[in-house]
């Protein structure tokens, strides 16, 4: 997908509505919009209030590709004989504008989960195909953000087709892929001047400085060693056992499957719920809150990396922000890193 970098262009703040209108004219365009706990991705319409969150929006980008509930197929039973109807492809955006680099990276982490052969999930894949992701670099990461600690970057390009870097008065717009160029070129924006490019570099430097350098710890190895560590007994105490962190996590992908009203659905599910692993016999392999919280962390920082080489976390900080108990993943991990074996 990625090839030789195209020339960056410059977009002024007041040109943004025109650009969005033009994009929406060419294909369904969704934008990061809204404030605080209601912010998320919605179809563009004129006058929409774009998100100005310091970090990512409250609702994730993943929800566009893996909605909270969706139909896997329809069925009807005629004279005792079932007839199955494959799910029709639901409304999908052609362009997403304003996604943060962490959210785009989360999609890249989820791609192999859904699309790894031999069991290719076309529901995910169908929406991922032919989408142009226009990302908004993070000028001022929020207090919950920690992307560098998990291999991300406030101006990261992974998974994006276009990266916009905020600078004084506008954005340096960098097409990153062929698809990104196809989105940018018709806008006929002027090339970014050297001083604007320099300003973009300064933005990146400031954002990186704010986030600090990643800790030099092999977290995967530490977690692997500490599965049975008594620290877990204390770490999980504050956890209420709700699914806020999983449902608003950009990389959590667990789901349940069930039949209702002539359709087979999949719906988000959470490893934080006791019923998640409960067998019909009554046996439950993960019996308590400790085991469940440990599973969630181990999956992200030990099991997923073992299979795919890097953690299933993009450091967006949503879980930090929304946890009713302020049980901060960052400090939990720091404590686990710190324990002596």
């Amino acid at each position: 997908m990625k090839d030789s970098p195209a020339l960056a262009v410059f977009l002024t703040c007041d040109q943004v509505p025109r650009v969005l209108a033009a994009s929406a004219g060419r294909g369904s365009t969704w934008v990061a919009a809204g404030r605080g706990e209601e912010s998320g991705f919605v179809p563009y319409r004129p006058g929409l209030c774009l998100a100005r969150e310091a970090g990512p929006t409250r609702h994730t980008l993943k929800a566009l590709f893996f909605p909270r509930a969706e139909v896997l197929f329809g069925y009807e039973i005629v004279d005792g004989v079932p007839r199955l109807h494959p799910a029709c492809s639901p409304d999908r955006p052609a362009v997403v504008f304003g996604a943060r680099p962490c959210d785009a990276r989360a999609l890249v982490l989820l791609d192999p989960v859904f699309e790894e052969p031999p069991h290719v999930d076309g529901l995910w894949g169908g929406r991922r195909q032919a989408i142009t992701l226009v990302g908004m670099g993070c000028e001022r990461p929020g207090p919950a953000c920690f992307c560098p600690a998990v291999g991300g970057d406030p101006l990261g390009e992974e998974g994006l087709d276009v990266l916009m870097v905020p600078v004084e008065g506008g954005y340096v717009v960098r097409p990153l892929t062929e698809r990104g160029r196809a989105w940018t070129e018709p806008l006929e924006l002027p090339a970014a001047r050297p001083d604007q490019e320099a300003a973009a570099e300064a933005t990146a430097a400031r954002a990186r400085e704010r986030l600090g350098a990643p800790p030099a710890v092999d977290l995967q190895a530490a977690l692997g060693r500490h599965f049975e560590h008594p620290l877990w007994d204390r770490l999980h105490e504050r956890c209420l056992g709700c699914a806020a962190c999983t449902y608003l996590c950009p990389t959590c992908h667990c789901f349940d499957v069930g039949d209702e009203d002539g359709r087979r659905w999949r719906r988000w599910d959470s490893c934080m719920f006791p019923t998640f692993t409960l067998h019909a016999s009554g046996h439950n392999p993960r019996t308590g809150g400790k085991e469940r919280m440990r599973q969630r962390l181990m999956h992200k920082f030990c099991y997923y990396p073992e299979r795919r080489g890097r953690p299933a976390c993009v450091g967006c900080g949503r879980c930090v922000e929304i946890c009713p108990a302020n049980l901060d993943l960052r400090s939990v991990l720091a404590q686990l890193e710190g324990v002596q074996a």
Partner: protein
Amino acid sequence: MNPYLPHLAIIEDVIPETASHDVKTFRVAFAEPEVRAGFRYEPGQFAEVSVIGAGEAPISITSSPTQEGYLEFAVKRAGVMTTAMHHARPGDYLGIRGPYGNHFPYREMEGKNVVFIAGGIGLAPLRSLVTFVLAPANRERYGAVSIIYGARSPGDLVFKWELERWGQRDDLDLEVTVDRGDAAWQGRVGFVPQVLRELAPRPDNTVTVTCGPPVMIKFVLQDLEKLGFTPDQVITTLEMRMKCGIGKCGRCNIGARYVCQDGPVFTYEQLQKMPAEY
């Protein structure tokens, strides 16, 4: 591609297994001839079985690939879906997708003695391999074959018709035991691990394949170790709650291993390296 869309299959026969009928075997055949002809599986694999409108559950295929034209599933009535399945009759439709998961290492087992150790409905996933090994085309590839099978009571034994057939063979040692007998029971009384200790199979050139309730497995593993079996000589198959069966729904992992993809068949050697969350 929609990997969640099942193929339709017709129930050909329903065989009540236990006295209380809480376990039944369903013999099914795919509705479409090309699916029937193209469905290939290995002993130890499972399928996602649907009662359309009631849901879906992962169920091990208890028939063997050597039995052509149909599949068999032995199902214990436990949750919503299996209860709905128990209401099904011959001629009714099921949805089936699969086969999923790994399989018993039957090629690596060639030339070796095989000891099957099963409890209750745990015989269901092993039966596929037993049938496969005993098939005329395969039997000579394996050494001595023995089966230790137990259940709580005579009424809880499954595949009694199969046990009778196996009992008549002279190329197979079958030991059936129950925890508690009844007036009519003439056979052994005792727990599976006790029988195992008594028979004391020798570990040389032998593989054991075991499946049953967790407490049985626990003692069987201990006893096998005492008999000199190394963890790589002990093969088991696990049951976990699953939804998708294809490694996406995130439900059936034990550590970094997904039971639906990396299992359900594991050696004890592999299990020892995994968290005890099963």
